[in-house]
């Protein structure tokens, strides 16, 4: 008896490491994991690069070849349209034609041979009675096109009115010359005073924030659920009795958290590595200009906030799993937790526009929302590094406390079979 005990003790590796290795392998050798890991980089590339491209494209309609019509009701307005509007549209590279037959224009737009037509009144360009001036298009949401047309028509009409009032033509031209305001982003981390960025930058940042938040939200929920599910499965398959006869419940919990967590980190590493490869190797090799608005440091913060958010939420999921007999009940228990995660998603746009508002600042320190809200603030405004570190510190302390609580719930819950437990029951376990 003694002999074999010694033999076993000598070979006794850390049981937590055994659980960790098993859970890691189980997670990584999984179709879903492999598919998401492979498709992830395209998603990440899509959320960081495409939005900028799309945003710039959609804002800057002057480079796009559109086919537009102008409806003029009579000879005078027709002449004015040919003289004033058609050249203006052509300057933007558009194809423009004037017609007095509205049904033909309408049919062309509906038949997609024309992108839209501008209807002008007979009094054009001096007056525009309500209802007589308008832009008719199949897509009324294309703000880029609409604002371009509005600007042009507005310039033409204002100039015409000024000239009618007696102003000199060149003087008028100098008055209505549009002013372009370049956008600069200040950054305290790069040390640069400011960098000129593209006009599509706001939308680009918005999409990047959305992407990063989605990434944290999805991975935290995905991995958290996975842990909760595996706990429920062990309970319902009764294998938990055998596990507990071999390993302490704490080691089982920590092994699971770390094993699945490392799988998550592996996935992030693949994604970020792939994205960086596209940006730094593939892009330059094909002389592609890829507008990027995020730097390496942002990826670093992303990983740290993922780790914190993951540990926080997945330990809670593990506790919920331990108190449940089936996945439905686990999902019910986890509901309030997910609500906390949803706050930043719902308020995303407000936070992007006002990253330093009181609510955004508070939630960027509140550990249950900080992984996402601080990430948004870091992306859109120059947050001092020490602020980020404080937020991470609060998150780390919370993780420490919550993991201990979860371990306590886990230890009791995992042995209690045959019943779904309420939050009240769980609270009594924590007290004991």
């Amino acid at each position: 008896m003694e002999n074999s005990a010694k033999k076993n003790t000598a070979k006794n590796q850390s049981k937590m490491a055994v659980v960790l290795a098993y859970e890691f392998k189980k997670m990584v050798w999984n179709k879903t994991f492999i598919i998401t890991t492979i498709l992830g980089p395209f998603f990440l590339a899509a959320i960081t690069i495409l939005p900028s491209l799309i945003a710039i494209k959609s804002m800057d309609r002057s480079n796009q070849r559109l086919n537009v019509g102008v409806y003029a009701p009579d000879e005078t307005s027709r002449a004015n349209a040919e003289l004033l509007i058609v050249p203006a549209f052509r300057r933007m590279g558009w194809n423009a034609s004037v017609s007095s037959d509205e049904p033909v224009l309408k049919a062309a737009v509906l038949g997609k041979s024309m992108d839209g037509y501008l209807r002008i009144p007979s009094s054009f360009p001096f007056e525009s009675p309500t209802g007589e001036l308008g832009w008719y298009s199949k897509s009324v949401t294309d703000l880029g096109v609409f604002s371009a047309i509005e600007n042009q028509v507005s310039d033409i009409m204002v100039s015409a009115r000024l000239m009618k009032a007696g102003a000199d033509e060149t003087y008028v031209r100098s008055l209505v010359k549009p002013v372009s305001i370049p956008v600069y982003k200040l950054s305290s981390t790069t040390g640069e005073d400011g960098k000129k960025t593209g006009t599509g930058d706001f939308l680009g940042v918005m999409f990047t924030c959305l992407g990063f938040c989605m990434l944290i939200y999805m991975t935290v929920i995905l991995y958290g659920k996975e842990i909760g599910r595996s706990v429920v499965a062990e309970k319902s398959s009764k294998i938990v009795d055998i596990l507990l006869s071999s390993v302490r419940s704490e080691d089982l919990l920590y092994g699971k958290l770390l094993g699945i967590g490392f799988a998550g980190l592996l996935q992030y590493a693949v994604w970020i590595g792939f994205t960086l490869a596209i940006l730094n190797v593939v892009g330059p090799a094909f002389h592609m200009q890829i507008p990027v608005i995020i730097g390496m440091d942002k990826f670093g913060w992303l990983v740290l906030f993922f780790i914190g958010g993951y540990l926080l939420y997945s330990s809670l999921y593990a506790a919920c799993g331990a108190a449940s007999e089936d996945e439905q009940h686990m999902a019910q228990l986890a509901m309030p937790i997910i609500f906390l995660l949803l706050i930043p998603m719902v308020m995303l746009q407000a936070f992007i526009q006002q990253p330093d508002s009181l609510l955004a600042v508070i939630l960027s320190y509140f550990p249950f929302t900080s992984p996402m809200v601080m990430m948004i603030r870091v992306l859109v405004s120059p947050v001092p590094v020490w602020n980020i570190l404080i937020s991470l510190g609060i998150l780390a302390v919370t993780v420490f406390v919550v993991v201990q609580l979860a371990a306590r719930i886990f230890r009791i819950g995992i042995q209690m079979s045959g019943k779904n437990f309420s939050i009240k029951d769980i609270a009594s376990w924590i007290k004991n």
Partner: protein
Amino acid sequence: MLQVSHVTKKYGSFTAVDDLSFSATPGKIYGLIGPNGAGKSTTIRMIMNILSPDSGSIELDGKPFSAEDSNRIGYLPEERGLYKKQKLNEVLLYLAALKGCSSRVAQVQIDYWLSRFDILEWKDKKVDTLSKGMAQKAQFTATILHNPDIVFLDEPFSGLDPVSADDLLAIVRELKDKGKLILFSTHVMEQAEKICDHIIMLNGGKKILDGDLGEIRKRHGKNTVTVRFSSYDALPGIDLSCAEFLSSLPMVAAVSEDGLAYSVTLATGFDSDSLLVALAGKARIDSFAVNEPSLHSVFVDIVQGKGE
């Protein structure tokens, strides 16, 4: 040696195990028996350190239980289960690793036991494709593949067909001969009678009986013997009827007739040997059997206050 001393475990106001003490030594099969809810599973869980007792102590070889001692224990829980979606071999390797067993050693053991149970070809199949009986055997493999010193078997025969049950029984006896301490828990007392050397009987969380199976039978025997003669006529030189003859003997308190067999209750102070001697030469005996009490009847007697 396993020593359980004054262990008590309560769930709220319910006392699952009440001041339980017993000791167990290697090379024997111990039966932890009693009806459902007697406290058997709670006791086993406390010994394995899954639950901690409210009071009392559990020691292994004179030392309190440590986390490393779990490597010396093999446990077959009453409610069986393995990871359903995993391959059998992977699950067994994992469970062996959790017992501190290297994968090289574990693989040899897995192959040995699976082929002994005739399910080696299922090694790389997913667990949920195994039949119930095969899953039982796989689970038993998981219990013993790390060569534990102490084996806990909670209702090991439930759900097994008679042939598989006999196979399992043979292996359990083999383990006993190798000097393992086997603690076998069941509510089916007939099974315990077949296997165990020593019985610890629980009821309502309390120990009501603890002793060697033979001793218990002797102690709780009703002192009856069943005798069968070839025929009544084959009693030469005796004029009495068979029943009258038996009744006339000093060591016989009562006789009841049951076909050709007679159930004889011995008088106080006499044992079955004295009856055999008295009958020798006077009757042709076909069978002579000392009736042993069943554990079930012992249990009923104790619970009803007749025994102990």
